[in-house]
């Protein structure tokens, strides 16, 4: 053959290989970040923002009371004593509120913990703003010692009228191995 023509099979295969590679990348660069963004934005799974809330609310709504309940759970195998100082509090939307959680490490060794929050009903997650939270950081604790962990939050004035109670649940995880970069016990 004199005329050098591009082989159409090669063209087809090249396009398909690119598609397959792009779909593999799609999982990491689109699906994972998109899932996290959607969860944050819509409060799916009761997820709350992992960063401190800095906006200012337009005053306190004195006419309305919302009950905030606190729940603390230890993840499997986590030996710490962990719980809220009060089980529930009544707050006005727009007002800033403070409370603390207690944690104590009964073991002789230093450990690191991470608390993961979840809001129920999940619809309320977008209206529950934490200005300060121990869950923003990991919590190191020496052996046989304890700590008070602060939480400061504002319930948004735009919280839907039919929501009267919000439950804030923390699950505390042992991340000592993860922090030390060790491969989990296997």
């Amino acid at each position, binding site marked *: 053959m004199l005329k050098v023509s591009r082989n159409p099979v090669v063209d087809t295969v090249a396009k398909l290989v690119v598609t397959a590679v792009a779909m593999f990348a799609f999982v990491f660069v689109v699906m994972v970040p998109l899932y996290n963004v959607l969860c944050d934005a819509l409060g799916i799974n009761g997820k709350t923002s992992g960063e401190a809330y800095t906006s200012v609310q337009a005053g306190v709504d004195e006419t309305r009371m919302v009950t905030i309940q606190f729940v603390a759970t230890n993840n499997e195998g986590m030996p710490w004593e962990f719980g809220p100082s009060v089980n529930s509090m009544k707050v006005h939307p727009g007002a800033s509120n403070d409370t603390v959680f207690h944690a104590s490490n009964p073991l002789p060794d230093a450990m690191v913990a991470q608390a993961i929050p979840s809001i129920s009903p999940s619809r309320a997650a977008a209206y529950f703003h934490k200005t300060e939270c121990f869950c923003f950081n990991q919590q190191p604790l020496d052996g046989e010692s304890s700590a008070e962990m602060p939480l400061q939050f504002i319930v948004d004035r735009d919280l839907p009228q039919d929501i009267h109670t919000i439950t804030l649940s923390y699950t505390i995880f042992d991340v000592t191995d993860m922090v030390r970069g060790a491969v*989990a016990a296997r």
Partner: protein
Amino acid sequence: MGDHHHGPAKGLSRWLFTTNHKDIGTMYLWFSFAMFILGGAFAMIIRAELFQPGMQLVEPAFFNQMTTLHGLVMVFGAIMPSFVGLANWMIPMMIGAPDMALPRMNNWSFWILPPAFLILASTLFMEGGAPAFGWTFYAPLSTTYAPPSVTFFIFSIHVLGMSSIMGAINIIATVMNMRAPGMTYMKMPLFVWTWLITAFLLVAVMPVLAGAVTMMLMDIHFGTSFFSAAGGGDPVLFQHVFWFFGHPEVYIIILPAFGVVSQIIPTFARKPLFGYDSMVYATASIAFLSFIVWAHHMYTVGMPVAGELFFMYATMLIAVPTGVKVFNWVTTMWRGAMTFETPMLFCMGFLVLFTIGGFTGLMLSIAPADFQYHDSYFVVAHFHYVMVAGAVFSMSAAVYYWLPKWCGKMYSETMGKTHFWISFIGFNITFFPQHFVGLAGMPRRIPDYALQFADFNMMSSIGAFIYGASQILFLYNVIATIVSGKPTDKEKVWEGAEGLEWTVATPAPYHTFERPPAVR
């Protein structure tokens, strides 16, 4: 250029180094049958354990390994490779091509499959046992709580995924570039059409599966936290990624089956397929919809109501193109001069039972109702009606239909019909009662059950043994045909058959269509 009219090489090297689409198709078909027997053996252990309530034969941990491996082997080892084998054999002959577009890659994509399954099966003998987290391998069961063999499982999924992607690329390249002159897209046999669309689904979602297992691998060994809440990840993310692959996957399994049925019913109804164009558009619509319905597998994870509604309506929408297909098959038979040879019996069995599976699928698509059905034996019954009576029945039909063309021998019609009826009856005894125990609340994947489910489970187990035994009969039929079947040299083995594959000699010569045929 050398002489093209040579036969196959002799001995083992013929199979190791072959680039012939018929040889590779044959190897795929035999391999998938071996996996079908292996996955079937796992199912027999499951049903033997469930024959009576209480712990009977195996440890619960081993039972979990059996449910996991049964699913994985059947989906990735039996059904998918069987249709790839059929595609290898038939697509070049149906479009008038001399071979697949990429014969060497074809050899490679087959030969990496057996090692992948060897690795998967070898996990049974490893410390900690085989994967026991279900074929859907949800995190954190498959990460934090997995046995050490999970790493081998991940590697095996990577390898078989590569095999599927290469096979799919080959099929697309063949169909798009190797059609005989005059074979326009809208003249292609429906089996070619369904496989073309299936291959696009494979290229799009097998990499997603590879991504999911790669994330597992990184979570387990490299300290990432994609699926670990403690590190800021989310186990529910796994389910989204998995089902984004998993739902198209079920259509990857069933669309080639639709293609087979669309070839066989017109032959034995002696009428052209009713609504060819609408069949093509329905297949494409099903493929498109498969990408936007994945979360109907996870209604109970706590999605917002808007999400439940979207996935519910999108799922129900699939009933429309599927209904078009069932309508067209029935209408093809309407006032046809029908005969009921074994392939036709399997296709009619497919039609009835797949439709039942479709209806239970519609029930499951209703989000509020699904909260009761979720993870119960109702789901098990549903997907076995579409996977077994859908994919496996159509595969049996395909083997009986094309076997005379492949080997130049007729199978025994009596034996074929016996295989069909035992399969049909055994299948229904196995899976029909599972609808009832599921609705009554029996959960799936549990080695024990409450006493009130005892009778139906015993029926299920007896049916499963009957169905399992009938597949041994299938193996016997195929071997008996190849060894001592009545020879035939009719090009058109079936009176009513249409298509290029029926214009070549019987048995099909090693090389066909070295010169492209004229397509009217």
